[in-house]
């Protein structure tokens, strides 16, 4: 029997044991890390978007230095790569992909979704982005330019979507509830339910 023949559950179990024996990763450290990672959700990014829609100074900061803007809202950014924020307008829409793997603004959006990591998304986002968007139910006006941005391990991107019409006077919390992960990657557009 060799390592290559072990099934993945057995291999993971063995690795956990060895890392614990060597005091590299104890079970309670792993549990704590899972708890922290699970707490990073798209609700974090949605709070940034809602604040940017309500506060022009925050919007400027967010477009200049996304990581500082996130930290200002108490989103933990320690150890995270720099965060660039791309502003959608009536004339220009942004779509984020990682063609090489799965780089994703995890600090503000949480774990990357399954589709973001898929070969189909990675291959098609840079070749047929408008066709790809229709599979998410998104049809861009022909006059809106579409810019596709490829993430890297060293620099992450999120999208600042346009504020939907009909939300004038809404509270920041209500606005934040409108914003989904896909809106901040550019596969969908925030809309009133």
């Amino acid at each position, binding site marked *: 029997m060799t390592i290559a023949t072990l099934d993945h559950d057995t291999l993971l179990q063995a*690795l956990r044991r060895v890392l614990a024996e060597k005091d*590299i990763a104890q079970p309670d450290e792993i549990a704590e890390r899972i708890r922290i990672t699970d707490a990073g959700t798209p609700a974090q990014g949605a709070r940034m978007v809602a604040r940017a829609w309500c506060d022009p100074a925050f919007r400027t900061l967010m477009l200049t230095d996304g990581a500082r803007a996130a930290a200002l809202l108490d989103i933990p950014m320690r150890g995270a790569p720099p965060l660039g924020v791309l502003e959608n307008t009536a004339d220009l829409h942004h779509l984020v992909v990682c063609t090489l793997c799965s780089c994703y603004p995890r600090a503000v959006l949480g774990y990357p979704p399954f589709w973001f990591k898929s070969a189909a998304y990675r291959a098609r986002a840079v070749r047929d982005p408008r066709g790809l968007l229709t599979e998410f139910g998104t049809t861009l006006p022909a006059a809106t330019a579409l810019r596709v941005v490829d993430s890297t391990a060293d620099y992450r991107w999120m999208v600042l979507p346009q504020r939907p019409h009909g939300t004038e006077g809404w509270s920041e919390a209500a606005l934040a509830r409108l914003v989904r992960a896909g809106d901040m990657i550019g596969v969908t557009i925030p809309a009133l339910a």
Partner: protein
Amino acid sequence: MDQDEPRAMHDIGGVPRFLCEPVDPSPHSLTEFDRTVDAIRQILGQKQVMSVDELRRGIESLPEATYFGLSYYERWLRSITAILLEKSVITEAELMAAATAP
């Protein structure tokens, strides 16, 4: 890029093989396996045992059939194991002993 230029298997932006494949936008929950592998990688990074770039090298050097045959976090586990063995952080004997222990 020149269409005929050879590309690494993970460099799949625009490659014809996947252009007709639909994207499944439905939500998928992570399993306990997925979360655990992810957490271990983060801890190894924080303790400077292994970097993200090393994780990527381990994934990108999997044989192509293995790369496309494994789930996302199975690739991570294979890479983490290979890199830790390569750096002598762990040994094959330790891993096999742990795998066969009751």
